[in-house]
């Protein structure tokens, strides 16, 4: 039954922009973008509990690859190059930090976006001599939405498959106790690295797919740190350890922030901060887990025992 419902839901989502106006389609593009970002983030950070604050580093690199290559190569090849760049970057970051304790990873990702932004800015100013770039691709908001929807199906499908595979089991053990995982013969560093690369590649693709919406791209636009923080809070609010958790967090939060940023632009960061505190103190496992606890109080006792 679940498959049928999912198929119908995605079919409905696919025809939605045909009825929504320009504003509605724009909103859907943003919403679907965050659905994929939060789901992809949770693929790695959910089971391993390694909080990555570098979403926008990959997202921005994806957008930048499109900005650089969009006039030289055909669109599918550009997307492929973006994915390859994101995967390569994730490999370098992962190899240098994932063998160490989680804290080093958090600290490194904390500044990664700023580092990439500085490097690209420096390179553009000193070597190529052009800071801003234009993207002229014949893609409507609707096309972008459909690509993001396909990416969402891919991400959720990957999440579903990983959950059932040996890889997912290994990840859960690592998240519970890394020492136990290592003693059980799980290649800890390699497992984390594989998941991190998958997650980062999807995030890079979101940036690449959304890039044509900007038309004009420069580092300060595409490396906006708010994207990273929103992604984290969306995934955590819904519940990063569940397949549908990030989606359940991304949809209401995106609409809420869209509404808030129009009305209270000065209070944005206070609200974002309060949201983080609310998740830590009131909803430690996310909304979906809290709902389940209300419906079936016995589940809680069983898992605690």
């Amino acid at each position: 039954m679940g498959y049928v419902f999912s198929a119908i839901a995605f079919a409905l989502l696919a025809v939605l922009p045909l009825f929504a106006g320009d504003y509605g389609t724009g909103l859907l593009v943003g919403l679907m973008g965050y659905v994929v970002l939060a789901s992809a983030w949770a693929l790695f950070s959910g089971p391993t509990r390694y909080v990555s604050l570098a979403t926008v580093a990959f997202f921005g690199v994806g957008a930048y690859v499109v900005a650089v290559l969009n006039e030289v190569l055909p669109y599918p090849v550009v997307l492929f190059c973006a994915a390859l760049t994101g995967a390569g970057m994730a490999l370098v970051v992962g190899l240098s930090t994932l063998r160490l304790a989680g804290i080093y990873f958090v600290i490194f990702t904390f500044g990664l976006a700023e580092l990439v932004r500085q490097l690209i800015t420096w390179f553009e100013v000193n070597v190529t001599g052009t800071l801003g770039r234009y993207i002229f691709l014949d893609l409507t908001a609707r096309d972008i939405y459909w690509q993001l929807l396909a990416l969402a199906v891919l991400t959720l499908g990957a999440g579903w498959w990983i959950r059932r595979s040996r890889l997912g089991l290994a990840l859960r053990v690592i998240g519970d106790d890394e020492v136990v995982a290592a003693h059980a013969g799980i290649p800890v560093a390699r497992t984390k690295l594989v998941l991190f690369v998958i997650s980062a590649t999807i995030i890079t693709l979101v940036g690449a797919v959304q890039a044509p919406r900007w038309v004009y791209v420069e580092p300060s636009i595409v490396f906006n740190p708010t994207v990273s923080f929103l992604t984290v809070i969306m995934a955590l609010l819904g519940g990063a350890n569940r397949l549908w958790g990030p989606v359940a967090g991304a949809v209401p939060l995106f609409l809420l922030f869209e509404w808030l940023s129009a009305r209270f632009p000065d209070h944005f960061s206070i609200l974002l901060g309060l949201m983080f505190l609310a998740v830590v103190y009131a909803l430690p496992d996310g909304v979906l887990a809290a709902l389940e606890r209300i419906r079936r109080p016995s589940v809680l006792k069983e898992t605690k025992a």
Partner: protein
Amino acid sequence: MLASTLALGIILGGTYALLAMGLTLQYGIARILNLAYGEFMLLSCFVVTGLFTAWGIGPLLGLLVVTPAGYALGWLVHAGMMSPLLRRGDAGRLEVDTILATFGLLFVLQGIMLIVFGSDFTSYSYLDQGVSLLGVTVAANRLVALAVSLAIGLGLYAVLMRSNWGRAMRAVALAPQSAWLVGIDVDRMGRQGFALGGALAAAGGALVSMFLTFSAADGVVFTMKALIVVIMGGVGNVLGALVAGLLLGLAEVLVAAFIDPGLTLAATYALFLVVLLWRPTGLFGRVGG
């Protein structure tokens, strides 16, 4: 050129060292990675600036006001926000929970400062005449800041190494699971360590405000630099933070002077990456520690 660059680097590094010392106490003793650390510091910058411009109270006197206030604020944050998380008793989650909670605090404090103080860059001039030192001209305020940083840092180091209280602190940093066996109240020490970190953040803020232009959005950059110094120096290692802070200051100033001022963060990160790959426990950390 080189001599004055080196002098600038050492002075900047001295302040980084002071900043990082507070964070290394909070993380080493209280085991809480405080991502809102830079915001604590900025708050002190703004208060000291306000005291100076409104009532003419000099930053060194202001330092005496904000340091105890920083201690009190650190104590309150630990008692109010961190203790409930510590009491949950799930060690695997504690780290993530404290990171996310201080991350939330970062945004709340940043938002409040943006509303109260605005997003403009702030600075004031205090002792900004040049002083000639071994043929290099340095602004007097920077020299005073370095001297006070070093005095506070070395004083703290002496107290940690010599006094009973310092020994207890180091025991908690070294072996939190066993420290209570010898009669140390680990929770209380943790709270004191966190509060002391708050005091050092406030002191660092007061000193930095004497010569640096700052804005309400700068907290994250300070936190990031302090974090890198802490990892480089070895977590909980005060002397390590001092040396690593000086190294970082030097690296930054040298890169800004001879390569490109836009690449200072890249230089910081390159240094961080080298340390991570080469000695993950820090330059002065013990192997496997």
